[in-house]
């Protein structure tokens, strides 16, 4: 519920601004004066295991970021399924509603890879970080082709060693609350690697950080939920599962979950 008193609205907006500012300060200064040292150490001294250390540093960095945000926005309650942090060696697919979603998943998974829009690889510092972390570009044009070949070539081994690949199969944030068209890539990776596919459902992060807005919205009372809906994928009996079948199964799981939720509401 949002208060309508102009003074309250003003003070709440001011608070939103302050929270956003604190989060940005953490983002920039915690990276520059603390985490960058460890990233550089990992890059220069731990070359054999760079990728894994970078992923772990990303996990710690975003744990800090979300810890601050949760502390400063107490009207938002977080229901995170404790099973998620224990997921290993899986492909994780999740619906996508806010820019907070990837940060939340990184903060829950110490060894994580994901697919990132190719243009982000060109960004200074950030591009370097996601490249060394072993994240995959979404396209194969130009240098991205080499990255994709390298990452996909090692994906099975990465998953077998306990890493997770999380992907938002809709590709972009969904703004209408429904379920968008899926990109098939993640299901093809699932078919290729023959690993379990964990289906996660996330809701209400868009109420804290709405698409198109710059400030966090700390004013509303909200419950952010991230839950495991099901685990699909190949079994010893099924063998190789076609990508289209995986996609169909995952969509069905999402749709019946959304239907159940709507029926309850």
């Amino acid at each position, binding site marked *: 519920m949002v208060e309508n008193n102009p003074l309250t609205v003003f003070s709440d907006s001011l608070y939103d601004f302050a929270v956003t500012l604190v989060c940005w300060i953490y983002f920039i200064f915690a990276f520059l004066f603390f985490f960058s040292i460890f990233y550089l150490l990992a890059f220069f001294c731990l070359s054999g295991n760079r990728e894994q250390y970078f992923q772990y540093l990303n996990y710690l960095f975003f744990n800090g970021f979300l810890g601050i945000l949760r502390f400063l926005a107490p009207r938002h309650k977080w229901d995170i399924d404790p099973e998620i942090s224990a997921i290993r060696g899986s492909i994780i697919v999740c619906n996508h509603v806010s820019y907070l979603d990837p940060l939340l998943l990184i903060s829950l998974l110490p060894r994580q890879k994901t697919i990132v829009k190719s243009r982000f690889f060109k960004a200074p510092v950030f591009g370097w970080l996601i490249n060394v972390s072993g994240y995959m570009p979404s*396209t*194969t044009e130009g240098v991205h082709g*080499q990255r*994709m070949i390298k990452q*996909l070539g090692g994906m099975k081994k990465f998953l077998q060693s306990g890493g997770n690949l999380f992907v938002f199969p809709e590709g972009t944030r969904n703004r209408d609350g429904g379920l968008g068209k899926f990109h*098939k*890539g993640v299901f093809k990776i699932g078919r*290729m690697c023959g690993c379990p596919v964990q289906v996660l459902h996330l809701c209400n992060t868009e109420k804290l950080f709405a698409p198109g807005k710059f400030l966090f919205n700390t004013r509303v009372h909200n419950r952010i939920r991230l839950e495991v809906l099901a685990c699909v994928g190949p079994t010893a009996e099924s063998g*190789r599962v076609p990508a*289209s079948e995986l996609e169909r199964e995952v969509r069905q799981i999402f749709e019946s979950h959304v239907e159940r939720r709507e029926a309850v509401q």
Partner: protein
Amino acid sequence: MTRDELQKKIVTILVDEFEFENPGLSDNLRDDHGFDSIDAIELLAKIEEMLGFQISRKEKEKAMSIRTINDILDYIETLQAAHTS
């Protein structure tokens, strides 16, 4: 392996493993069968198995421009030639 034998094997792989329906040799793999870079990389692993040698990263990059089954066959023939010479 002759081109005909290669063609038979590749078409079988595409139908059995990549869910192709009635593939034609000049079909655009992406537009007609939804074949993308992930499929290409998986297919390269199958080609490696079939040929019995590893394909270098540079050679794999060249495969990213493949558009038709005929292109795949040309690509494999070039690989074979390079590895036997």
